[in-house]
């Protein structure tokens, strides 16, 4: 049996970033993810804002890591070929009481090392956001704030890790962890893996995974958030990420211009019991619509194209901080748990911290001299020039076949996703990588084509193709005909 130096459990953005970081070293690393794709936990259900660090309490683990992580994003985007935009951020104040809160957050921001942060007046906000609620009086401005698609970032981390020697196993839910001498034997339903160290990046299930190894140091509970996606074409939409004044557990309901030109409105914040309940709730959706109208009163709420939800992994009784530590019970077990917001912004720095903890726990980290930090950006047909499009089609006819009409996604892009380093194997896997089915018609026109391409490439019947998780078949056989 292969013996790994490190097994990472959980392939969200945290686990993927750690995998990529560890691939800089000459050690044997594997990542086990229970889903059929990476990033299916909190990582696919969030707002994608790379917060610069105005919110966390100075001195907390979160504060340090958030600011350090966020700073790396522009460079990472170049290395790893994921998209990034820089809309900047306003935290809006309505009156003098809010101004106090903003000043408080300004102080946090400065102490957490944000260079450009200041309080601006109503006119400055209005110049940039002409349709802003007229009752806004001030705003905290953080112009360096960026936005990413967190799934794309996680995929980029994971694919670059694979390229540099990490093995990623999908569909592997860890069910059992046993100690074999110094090592761990990690078992799923179908396979076992031997490893010297475990990194627990299992999101909302980190406490359950720890328990498998007999480690009970914290308890977790998910904080649920609903989100809405709006059409790209709207007369009134935000140019800037805009939050209201924050509450104790949440930054409040924001509107976020995405890298693709849509608007996301999120998120609510409700403590839940069920760690897998990512349903949308009616009162949540209603609260989001009220929330966005508090910021942009005239935004057209008929332009919603999709709702979704995510669960923030919260370690209880831990002041909403991250829990990134060597286990007190077993020093070869490292927690990267409780990665609630802003876990996306923090991921690159969480990975470095985990690397240091592994080192502290006795793992030697010789440099991988062959480490290649670059991952080529996927081809996006729609943004190419006419000349480039023509060349691409001449080389490969599949790029001349538009599959998704709303987002202009070609068969060539879909094939590239299916043949990627971490291949898309499901309809939603294709959607997340290529945007086929993400537009206004929400796959009404292209779902059949995507199904057919997947079935053809995997050489299976169309009835076997899944939407997302196992059991999510779309087709139940042939009609009587």
């Amino acid at each position, binding site marked *: 049996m292969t013996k790994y130096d490190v097994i990472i459990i959980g392939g969200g953005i945290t686990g993927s970033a750690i995998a990529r970081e560890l691939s800089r070293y000459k050690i044997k690393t594997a990542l086990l993810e229970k889903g059929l794709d990476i990033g299916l936990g909190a990582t696919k259900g969030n707002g994608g804002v790379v917060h610069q660090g105005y919110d966390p309490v100075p001195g907390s683990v979160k504060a340090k890591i958030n600011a350090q992580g966020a700073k790396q994003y522009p460079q990472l985007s170049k290395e790893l070929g994921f998209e990034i935009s820089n809309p900047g951020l306003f935290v809006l104040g309505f009156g003098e009481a809010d101004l106090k809160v903003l000043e408080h957050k300004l102080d946090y921001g400065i102490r957490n090392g944000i260079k450009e942060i200041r309080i601006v007046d109503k006119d400055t906000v209005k110049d940039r956001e002409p349709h802003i609620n007229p009752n806004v009086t001030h705003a905290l401005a953080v112009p360096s704030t960026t936005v990413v698609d967190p799934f794309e970032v996680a995929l980029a981390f994971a694919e670059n890790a694979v390229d540099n020697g990490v093995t990623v196993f999908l569909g592997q839910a860890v069910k059992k962890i046993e100690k074999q001498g110094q090592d761990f034997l990690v078992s799923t339903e179908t396979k076992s893996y031997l490893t010297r160290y475990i990194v627990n990046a299992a999101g909302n299930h980190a406490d359950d995974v720890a328990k498998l190894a007999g480690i009970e140091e914290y308890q977790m509970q998910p904080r649920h958030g609903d989100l809405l996606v709006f059409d790209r074409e709207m007369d009134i939409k935000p140019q800037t990420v805009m939050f209201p004044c924050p509450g104790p557990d949440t930054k409040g309901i924001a509107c976020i211009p995405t890298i693709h030109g849509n608007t996301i409105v999120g998120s609510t914040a409700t403590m839940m019991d069920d760690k897998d309940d990512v349903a949308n709730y009616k009162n949540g959706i209603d609260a989001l619509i009220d929330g966005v109208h508090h910021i942009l009163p005239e935004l057209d709420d008929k332009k919603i*194209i999709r*709702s979704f939800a995510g669960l923030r992994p919260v370690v209880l009784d831990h002041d909403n901080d991250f829990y990134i530590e060597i286990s007190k019970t077993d020093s070869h077990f490292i927690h990267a748990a409780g990665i609630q917001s802003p876990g996306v912004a923090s991921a690159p720095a969480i990975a470095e911290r985990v690397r240091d903890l592994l080192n502290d726990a006795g793992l030697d980290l010789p440099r991988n001299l062959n480490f290649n930090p670059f991952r080529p950006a996927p081809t996006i047909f729609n943004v190419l020039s006419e000349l480039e499009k023509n060349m691409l089609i001449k080389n490969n006819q599949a790029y001349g076949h538009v599959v998704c009409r709303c987002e202009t996604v070609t068969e060539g892009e879909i094939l590239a996703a299916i043949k990627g380093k971490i291949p898309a194997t499901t309809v939603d896997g294709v959607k997340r990588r290529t945007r086929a089915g993400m537009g*206004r018609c929400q796959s009404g026109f292209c779902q059949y084509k995507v199904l057919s391409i997947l079935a053809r490439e995997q050489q299976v019947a169309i009835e076997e193709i*899944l939407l997302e998780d196992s059991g999510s*078949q779309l087709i139940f056989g*042939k*009609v009587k*005909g």
Partner: protein
Amino acid sequence: MMENFDVVIIGGGPAGMAAAVEAARKGVSVAIVERNDELGGILNQCIHSGFGLQYFKEELTGPEYAENFKNLVEQAAIKVFLKTMVTDISPDKKVTAVNEDGLVTLLAKAIVLAMGCRERTRGAIKIPGTRPAGVLTAGLAQRYVNMENLKPGNRVVILGSGDIGLIMARRLALEGMEVLGVYELMPYANGLFRNVKNCLDDFGIPLHLSTTVSRVIGYPRVEAVEVCQVDDKGCAIAGKEKIIPCDTLLLSVGLIPENELSLKLGLKLNGASNGPVVNQDLESSVKGVFACGNVLHVHDLVDKVTVEAIQAGKNAAEFALFNTVRRDEQSQFIKYSNNIAYTVPSIFNTSKDLLVKFRVRKPITGGQIKIFSGDQLISESRIRDFKPSSMEEISLKKDDLCDQAKGLSIILEEASA
């Protein structure tokens, strides 16, 4: 590749085909650009009959209706680009498309937009709950069942009583799926009376009015839906929920004109119909660009699409031949009473007869319709029952239109109950 045409038609559904045939009849060079591998548009998947009664005076299936026009297109000297998707149109009428040979550029003198429509989705109506496999639009189900012989589910609940929902209820029942019921938010069925009878009653499928799907339950596949009665404002009534076990939810909740390209072209859109603003020549706010069929406004009968498209094709050909310049600055918006949802055209001038099509917002049982030019009453007529699902028409003679500066108003007065 670059080619010149007098008229380029975007979309090869019934609207595009009729416009092309008519334009070609005027002796101009015509191209149709169609994304799919055959002409016919949405008709290819509508295998039920009920098409053509008005235009061909016989009852045809969708593919038969399309076939008639495909033959006409073939006979005329029309260049057809299949598997070719238009990605951009510029105001100087350069049409950019892609297909397997590469980029295709067509330079046109006039353009007809005939891209059809798409279906409203779950997101648009904000149904809460889980997001499993088994929630799909009626049009997608139609494609799976009618064209690919695939079964998208076993036990089906349908939301929406428009004609597509009703026709799919029957289709699925005929194909051996269990249709548990059709649920409709409004207190009346949205489809044609004959479809309620032929598609539901004859198959013992219940229709539940003033009821909506309030939640989707189950993951990774639909396990049930929660339905709930609504009050006269369409709001769910607490305590009136019911769980219906099923594995599929079919949505038939409306169609939206597909105007991505129109927006790139910079056309003005009409927020009420979701189609381009056009005058009575079906000409948009960009000179020489015309629109017809479902891209202009959603039609219930394909026969009406054909009639409209013939007009668009004719006007496009004339524009290409004579470069007719109209002074639209003088055109006026047609005003209408609140109970009317929209009119097509939305602007008019006094140079020609005017056919106004419109839909009402809610059912109206009797009343009268008055047309004013300025404050002068120019016509008045009694009306029968109007439903939002059916398109109504009023035809006005050029001479009736009086002075356009005074504007035109259509006032629908309901008979007081």
